């Protein structure tokens, strides 16, 4: 499949989509359940990460997309680890003898797709490599639909996907959590460094506002580290941020018309 080039325009698109992404509220528990399991498996992902020189969360996201986090299957195609792969791509890993460890198989699968050749792992590159790993069919043939491989369970995707017989359906909706959503949630739960900015030190204001305020983004990032909370980080601590603060602290942000101090 002809590759898509990571242009400046595509960089901007990935960054904008990621920063404006919001996880669908009715999917919080599904996403957190996946993230919990990923955190448990983190030492395995770190081993593979060292072999292929890619971030551990990238390996984790691919593992969820390709195997639903099963550790008994080849990452290449879901064949059992007890032998080399039989189905496409067949005969992998080419080196070593079966049975294979999950880590050895995963490193081979990622190297087969040349992930080990990627030098820069900024946010945009992570998203580009994830989309490319799945294939460019969505972007090339159905550009009106953001790839569910990245954005499913977020505000950037609702429906449209390839179905089992290889045909396109405008009405079918992916039932699998997208890879960007997983990474966003790992970031929100402070399992990985913030990819779009960092929480700075000192005091974070617990202030309600109907505009962007200083340190508003830091407040939202902090609130995102709590279970069941996923805010868009836009520096505008309005109703949604205040609702999140109520969940965490038991009170709305200061200045919220719903609070007693307003």
């Amino acid at each position, binding site marked *: 499949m002809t590759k898509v080039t990571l242009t400046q325009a595509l960089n901007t698109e990935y960054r904008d989509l990621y920063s404006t992404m919001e996880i669908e509220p009715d999917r919080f528990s599904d996403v957190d359940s996946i993230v919990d399991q990923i955190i448990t498996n983190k030492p395995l992902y770190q081993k593979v990460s060292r072999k292929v020189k890619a971030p551990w969360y990238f390996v984790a996201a691919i593992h969820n997309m*390709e195997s639903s986090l099963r550790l008994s299957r080849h990452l290449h195609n879901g064949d059992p680890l007890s032998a080399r792969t039989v189905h496409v791509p067949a005969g992998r890993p080419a080196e070593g003898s079966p049975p294979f460890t999950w880590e050895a198989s995963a490193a081979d699968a990622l190297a087969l797709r040349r992930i080990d050749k990627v030098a820069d792992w900024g946010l945009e590159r992570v998203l580009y490599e994830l989309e490319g790993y799945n294939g460019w069919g969505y972007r090339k043939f159905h550009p009106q639909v953001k790839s569910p491989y990245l954005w499913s369970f977020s505000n950037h995707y609702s429906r449209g996907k390839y179905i089992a017989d290889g045909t396109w359906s405008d009405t079918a909706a992916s039932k*699998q959590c997208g890879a960007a959503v997983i990474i966003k949630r790992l970031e929100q739960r402070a399992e990985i460094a913030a990819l779009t900015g960092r929480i700075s030190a000192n005091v974070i204001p617990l202030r309600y506002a109907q505009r962007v305020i200083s340190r508003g983004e830091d407040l939202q990032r902090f609130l995102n580290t709590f279970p069941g909370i996923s805010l868009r980080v836009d520096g505008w601590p309005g109703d949604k941020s205040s609702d999140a603060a109520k969940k965490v602290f038991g009170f709305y942000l200061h200045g919220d018309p719903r609070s007693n101090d307003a």
Partner: protein
Amino acid sequence: MVIPDRMMLRYLGVLLLLLCLQACSDQEAPHRQIHSSFSEATGLTVTDNSGLSQQLIAESLGVRVVVSNDGQWLLVEDMQLSSLVVVRAFHYEGDRYREVGLFEVRRRWEVLAEEAGVDFEDLIRPRVGIEGFGPGQKSVRLHFRADTGLRAYPEIDSIVEIPLVMFLAI
């Protein structure tokens, strides 16, 4: 047990007839040696021992080609996305391979999805693998695998034999 001479002759006759039919069949369908090459950039190209070269698939992440003994059939696992593998069939028609629609595959997916309690369109990561040709190379054994997203029936993993029927694709 002693087999009477007349019975023995009858057996020999039948055997000769079968050998003759086999030979005729071999003449009608000479063995074709198939070489396939694939890259993501150029797709799947097959070349036979007569020099015929033909691109069968242009866009794919990966393929696995299984050829029938006589070279008349090519079955291909086509990884259209990393999370979607379909099977495609090609039959040799005089001077080239033509794609044959495997309409039974979709019906099988629908049946398997229904058994699992999920809509066909909701299957996660559907992949069809080729296990081999059936008797007489008139059918193919396919391995259907997918996740359902359901706790009660999380996975479809089933091998099904489907006929190779000659409805030519457009």
